[in-house]
């Protein structure tokens, strides 16, 4: 299993993500939006906390198994600690403002044909592309 399998690995991995979102909808009737699940734990709602915590635990466990069987699937962010923390704050605040991230808007929302999620996804993609272009122009290595 290699994450570097290129397009095949990308499509297969994507299909697994789609399957995961479908499973959560079929079983629990909930959307697999990771930023929303984090936000849910920060503002707990009775009856939701257990599955939300379990979902994040599943993500971490999958990551743990991944580090054992496919360590090359993990890389490191190019940022030093200070900018990394700043980026984390921006990701957290931005996803809570817009009500979703790559999974909630990008996968779940677009799969439903939500115009709101399409606007969000186009906007955060454009913003991220522009950010990488600026970093590159300033001499950084994105």
């Amino acid at each position, binding site marked *: 299993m290699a994450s570097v399998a290129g397009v095949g*690995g990308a*499509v*297969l*991995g994507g*299909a*697994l*993500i789609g399957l*995961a979102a*479908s499973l959560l909808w*079929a*079983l*629990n*009737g909930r*959307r697999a939006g990771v*930023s*929303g699940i984090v936000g849910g734990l920060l*503002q707990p709602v009775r009856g939701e906390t257990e*599955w939300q915590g*379990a*979902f*994040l635990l599943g*993500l971490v*466990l*999958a990551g743990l*198994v*991944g*580090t054992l069987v496919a360590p090359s*699937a*993990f890389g490191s962010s*190019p940022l030093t*600690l200070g900018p*990394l*923390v*700043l980026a*984390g*704050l*921006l*990701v*957290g605040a*931005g996803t*809570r*403002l817009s*009500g979703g*991230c*790559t999974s*909630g808007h990008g996968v779940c*929302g677009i*799969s439903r044909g939500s*115009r*709101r*999620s399409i*606007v*969000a996804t186009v*906007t*955060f993609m454009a*913003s*991220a592309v*522009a950010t990488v*272009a600026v970093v590159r122009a300033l001499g950084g290595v*994105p």
Partner: protein
Amino acid sequence: MTPAVGRALGGLASGLLFGAGLVVSGMTDPANVLGFLDVFGRWDPKLAFVMLGAIVVHALALRVLARRPAPWLGAAYSVLPPPRIDGRLVLGSLVFGVGWGLSGYCPGPAIASLPAAGARGLAFVASLAAGQGVVLGLDGLGSWAWRDTSASRG
């Protein structure tokens, strides 16, 4: 098995599968994500294929599941308020994009990378939660100038 335990197992299974998908697709490596975003440099289209695979599978599954009146383990499907396309949605997406473009991490891959990324990974996820907490705190103030119109938990 109580319903709450069943739903927790549903969450666990979905999280495991989701994380496996992130690892298999290589999205747990920020270099792959930043490569996709590096449109004016050495563009790497992989992320688009990940999105495509996920959306095709999920859209088809939703069509099939639409005939079911309720989820297997829950009372009802979650319903969102009417969607709003407003300044808050656009501002939040812009801010998220800057953080994503700088770090190469969005929330899912950052959390799945916790075992691999050590203290730096923990610092990113902690700051992500703090950023969410700031907005939730401001929403809690309920000021007229700061209304939560996000209407979705995605």
